[in-house]
């Protein structure tokens, strides 16, 4: 028997087939006018993005990581400052803190959202204040796998504690909480256009969203080497973090169908919820939130054997994330009280991402579900 064709984890080709005329035309236009840096597409994209999210300002940047880094630079967060972030997330969230010279404080996540636990956050802030060696300055909340964090609590906590709240919406752009789109849930929102993201470019890209025009002006300056009103008038130490025109052109084409794709992702997630076998713990949902479904992650027992079996059956998987940040060697020196983040640790042992994109059909989901059932039962 010949093996069925392998299933792609993210099917960018299907999307390209759908958008080919508009993407090709937009790329061609950039090649025609030749303004590859900060060309008209960049401005047009920023305006479209700001309209989509409902945020007053959208500042496009070179990557999701830069989108996290610039707000820290603008707030002059550095040595002696504490920045609180979830223990269960991608490394970029923490690395921007360390490269800024500040100290990351890893906070456990909640088991019903996989996002930073607001109670644990309050405890961590109190602990840092009691210890007295670091100054609490900011919180970076991550909307893991596309599900928005508990911003009503986080905003209240940060307002009370005088901390800057940055939403790391790298995976949640396109989602919403209580009917408010991601981009307006926190004072500052950072997102990513990495190709596999719900809104993905054909290369790296990111954006910062905020209602604060003065802050946005600083971000625009920082992404352009700290330039003032005049290009060679350097008013602050900046960096090079611009989104290029080609990526903006691609994103503009994709933004046209983004809302439709988010709905399709929700449909895929529901289909998974219904079809997957018992023994695969479904991702958390929140009645108040619309997830952008960047990832569909289940929890399984005996994950390594399950993954090996799925691989044999042509089903790709990914582990987001195999260890909590506090257990990564690079962050060892920042890890306070190791072992005190049980939820993150448990998630890392059992979490597993399944193929997720808007063009996944029910027949394929059935095949994945069947393969997973066999993998869990140990029969394939």
């Amino acid at each position, binding site marked *: 028997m010949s093996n069925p064709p392998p299933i792609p984890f993210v099917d960018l080709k299907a999307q390209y087939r759908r958008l080919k005329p508009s993407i090709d035309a937009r790329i061609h236009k950039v090649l025609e006018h030749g303004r590859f840096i900060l060309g008209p597409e960049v401005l047009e994209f920023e305006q479209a993005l700001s309209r989509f999210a409902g945020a007053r300002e959208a500042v496009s940047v070179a990557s999701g990581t830069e989108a996290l880094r610039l707000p820290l630079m603008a707030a002059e967060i550095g040595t002696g400052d504490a920045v609180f972030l979830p223990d269960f997330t991608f490394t970029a969230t923490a690395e921007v803190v360390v490269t800024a010279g500040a100290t990351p404080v890893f906070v456990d996540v*909640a*088991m*019903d959202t996989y996002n930073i*636990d*607001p*109670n*644990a956050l309050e405890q961590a802030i109190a602990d840092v204040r009691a210890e007295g060696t670091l100054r609490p300055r900011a919180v970076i909340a991550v909307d893991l796998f596309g599900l928005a964090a508990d911003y009503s609590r986080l905003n209240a906590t940060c307002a009370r504690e005088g901390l800057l709240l940055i939403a790391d919406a790298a995976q949640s752009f396109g989602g919403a909480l209580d009917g408010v789109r991601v981009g307006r849930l926190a004072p500052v929102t950072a997102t990513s256009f990495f190709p596999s993201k719900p809104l993905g470019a054909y290369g790296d890209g990111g954006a910062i969203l905020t209602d604060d025009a003065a802050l946005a002006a600083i971000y625009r300056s920082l992404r352009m080497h700290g330039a003032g009103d005049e290009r060679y008038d350097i008013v602050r130490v900046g960096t090079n973090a611009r989104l290029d025109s080609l990526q903006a052109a691609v994103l503009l084409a994709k933004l046209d169908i983004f809302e439709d794709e988010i709905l399709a992702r929700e449909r895929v997630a529901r289909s998974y919820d219904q079809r997957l076998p*018992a*023994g695969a*713990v*479904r991702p*958390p*949902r929140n*009645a108040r939130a619309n997830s952008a479904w960047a990832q569909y992650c289940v*929890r399984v*027992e005996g994950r390594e054997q399950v993954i090996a079996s799925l691989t044999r059956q042509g089903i790709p998987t990914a582990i987001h994330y195999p260890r909590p940040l506090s257990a990564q060697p690079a962050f060892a020196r920042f890890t306070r009280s190791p072992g005190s983040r*049980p*939820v993150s640790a*448990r998630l890392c042992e059992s979490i597993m991402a399944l193929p997720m994109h808007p063009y996944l059909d029910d027949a394929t989901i059935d095949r994945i579900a069947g393969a997973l059932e066999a993998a869990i039962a140990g029969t394939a």
Partner: protein
Amino acid sequence: MIAPVTIDELVVRASDTLEAAIATLDRNAVGVAFVVDDSGALVGTIGPGEIAAKLRAGAGRKTRVAAAMSSAPAAARAATPGDGAVLPVLDDRGRPIDYASAGRARRIPVAEPSLAGNELRYVSECVTTSWISSQGPFVRRFEQDFAAKTGARHAVAVSNGTVALHLALLALGVGLGDEVIVPDLTFAATINTVIHAGATPVIVDVDRTSWNIDPWATAAAITPRTRAIMPVHLYGQPADMDALLALADRHNLVVIEDAAEAIGAAYKGRHCGTLGHAGTFSFFSNKLITTGEGGMVVFRDAEAAERARRLRDHGMDPARRYWHLEVGYNYRLTNVQAAIGCAQLEQLDRFLARKLEIAERYRRHLSQIEGITLPALLDGHANSYWAFTMIVDLDRLGLGRDALADRLEKARIETRPAFYPLHEMPPYRAYAGNRDFTRTNWLSWNGISLPSAVTLSDEEIDYICGVIARLFEVRLMAREAPSA
């Protein structure tokens, strides 16, 4: 009920094959068979040890029993429960007509109260003073002593563990329209009381390690209507209270701990039942301490405790007899029961110490057997081992839970199966949603509680473990013996 092993189930012929001997040993559960010649006279004995030795020496299934048996007929040596000795009773022609064994002398019960303290003295006091109803000094004393012993703030004695749960729900205002999350693996009283209170139970799966309500499944089941979580500390193993309390705190829920089986158990140094908003205990006769029937509900909050006291007594205004403030119940404990409770409480430490010794002894014997899962040793969880329960793996051991229970019963050892999953029983199916219950199913179908009474002797534990070990040994032989 299964009859003890008869003499016929203990006899094989010298001319029979080892296969037949293995089958006899597998059925009779006592670990030995009497070998007789063609006239029926005893010529030897055979057990798993002899067969294993013969198989190692190259024998197969078809080898004759005569070649493997110990030819010396069992000597009339003293039988102690520990060595599982079985002695034949012979007629005048040397034929076995009956047998004697320590296991036969007493059926080892799964649970049995110990009433060797001041019980009789205190009860006599009730009788001589005529305080035999629910008024009387022992009720108050029992509540106070219990609170002091467990560290509970407010303790209210009630007529049993089930109404303790009902009262906890009522006193905390849980009722119509509220959802209460309960574990799938528990005694039915947990869910029944939720329904009695008018609330809607939401059944969730348990954790594979602690066998208690899974905080992850709980988290996933929380809706805007959720009012309470009811963790059960099953068999004396504490539930994952930190995770549950954190969830409850964030979602503004009350936590009612069903600690019916967990008197003496502690989570991170705090007595089970005293960590949540309310906790309930049972003093049914199989519990660590007993009042025959009886229960206790403890509260974090004084106001809730006051409400519980009122509801316990028909909703009557404590300051105004026969004036009812709300619709209440008669859930009172009697002074006689409380008297027994006070005497039992005095012995709690000793009972608990014995439970831990029993568990330790079981663990020492049974941890050798691959295919048996013992109660997990978890950091911060002080298990009271109310019922020593294990999970048997049919695939590994070749003997399922029910078959094991039948054979142990033949060896006069009483056991209890784990509870059925709530979600499978008709009255509760509607409360299961489409949630996953894989782990409860596994535990429910493979879990078995061994005798755990504080009256159980070390010799009896050794006997029980010996029987189990020999059963599995024989099973393995039955599967693996060479065919020739």
